[in-house]
């Protein structure tokens, strides 16, 4: 019994180590390359430490255009997807009707379909029906198609835990429907709405597949990265990846500090 426990511990431990090496080693390589003088992105041979790739990245106006476009698209995707997700989750959690399951299946289907299909159909639809050719607007529409679904699922998960008698109580105390919605229902859903907005922003900001087909000749940051990586690879992309990794780790760190101080305040 004892020896088998030790074996189990060793196996689990080494699996965990391997798993995280697998997960992080590629990112480490990628960051290291950003500081190598070599103009071909490679870890070895190490030709010397440099920051010139960051300078090159910041000097690239296309990168800035892509970044700005990405922020614009992500902003509108949040503005569109969160209300849609809210409306759909209210409809599906709060009302009983025959077509409920069918509607639910249709509304989650964009999540279960490859992004390129959404990109193609959005592009064709706006071109054909409204003569709006591919650009930021179609990218926003294409992305919102499935990001709304993610928002819906997130908000639904919380809405399902809502105690409906609270609305009854507020109504009974003289509130109008609108007051009940703004003062009772919405505050309860607020955490889910905030996470839905964050998720929508992230999903939009890093979307490649749908955007590639929907956006026509415009560029968002991922489209810019894609075209760079396919054409002539330069360590400037490693510099960009390095910035992403640093930002993510900083974000996680800040979140963790905030969470700890919050729980510290409580206790």
């Amino acid at each position, binding site marked *: 019994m004892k020896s088998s426990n030790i074996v189990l511990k060793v196996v*689990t431990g080494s699996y965990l180590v391997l798993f995280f090496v697998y*997960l992080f080693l590629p990112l480490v390589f990628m960051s290291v390359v950003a500081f190598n003088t070599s103009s071909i992105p490679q870890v070895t041979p190490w030709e010397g430490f440099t920051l010139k790739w960051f300078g090159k990245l910041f000097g690239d106006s296309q990168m800035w255009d892509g970044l700005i476009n990405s922020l614009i698209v992500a902003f509108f995707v949040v503005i569109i997807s969160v209300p849609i997700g809210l*409306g759909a989750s209210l409809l599906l959690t*709060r*009302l009983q009707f025959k077509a409920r399951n069918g509607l639910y299946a249709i509304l989650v289907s964009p999540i279960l379909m490859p992004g*390129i299909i959404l990109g*193609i159909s959005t592009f064709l639809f706006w071109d054909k029906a409204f003569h709006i050719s591919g650009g930021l607007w179609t990218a926003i529409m294409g992305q919102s198609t499935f990001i709304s679904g993610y928002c819906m699922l997130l908000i639904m998960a919380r809405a399902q835990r809502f105690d409906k008698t609270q609305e009854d109580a507020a109504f009974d105390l003289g509130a109008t429907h*609108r007051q009940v919605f703004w003062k009772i229902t919405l505050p309860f859903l607020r955490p889910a709405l905030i996470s839905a907005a964050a998720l929508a922003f992230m999903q939009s900001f890093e979307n490649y*597949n749908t955007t590639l087909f929907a956006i026509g000749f415009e560029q968002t940051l991922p489209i810019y990265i894609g075209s760079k990586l396919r054409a002539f690879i330069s360590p400037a992309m490693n510099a960009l990846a390095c910035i992403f990794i640093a930002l993510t780790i900083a974000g996680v760190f800040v979140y963790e500090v905030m969470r700890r101080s919050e729980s510290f305040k409580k206790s």
Partner: protein
Amino acid sequence: MRKFRQDAMRSFGSFGITFIWVTVGSWLIFMILLPQLIMLDFSFRPFLPLRKIGGPEDIYTLKNYIVLFTNEFHRAIFIKTIWTSVLVTTVALFVCYPIAFYLAKVARGARFAWILMGLIIPYWINELLRIFAWQLILADAGVLNKLLLAIDIISNPINFRAGNSAVIMGMVYAYILFMVFPLYNAIESLDRNQIDAARDLGSSWLRIHRRIVIPYAKPGIAVGCIMTFMLAAGSIAAPQLLGSPSSFWFSQVIYTNFECANWNQGAAYAMVLAGLCLIFIFAMLKIFKVDLKELAK
């Protein structure tokens, strides 16, 4: 219907009802249904020069679909895309199950938080860059070849990118989280007492997983597989960055069609890809005996 209207009125009032109609209605009609219908329409029309559109030759035809069977090159790519995606899904399932179980039932406190963070951080880095990282590893002069050469296992660099191996490795890496989290969610709600009870009854670890954890995690397995398969089959970044002409992917065929403005052919292939994913979804639901409603968990 009258009851539905009454309930709606009671729950939301006229303001709320309008809000729901506008949001859900525009999503459903302008973002989901009409675009798909237009694409379907496109896929059944022949590819014609602009001046002939609307003319006598612009009639519904199955031609765009038949090409998939007559064009050997496309057919081979399609079939390869399917089995390779299945392979990616299977590998991801085996790699992710232990970590999902560990996270859900074994890890506690600080260790749990660290592992969760470790899983999320790579996910926040753009998919393209995640795949690009593997380019650095798998290139002819990449880290892996350098390492293998240095310890004398090989005498010449291996060209990983010639076959599908680089693409597969990149995809497993890029989509791992879409497998871990559905599995984690499913296993997490399993009552630990069930595992303890089985162990108390003398069951081995392997049997506990086979008889208790895996059957319970079925909805999570189904969701994880559906997501991973869909992402793999529809992936365009991984084959673009890690592939070579010999490892062309079905999504690249579609992309090429659009690059040469043959929207009709592209739409038909997109429909085929959608159909493939739909079949896979239903197959998963059937195999794991899961209801569509459980997918949302």
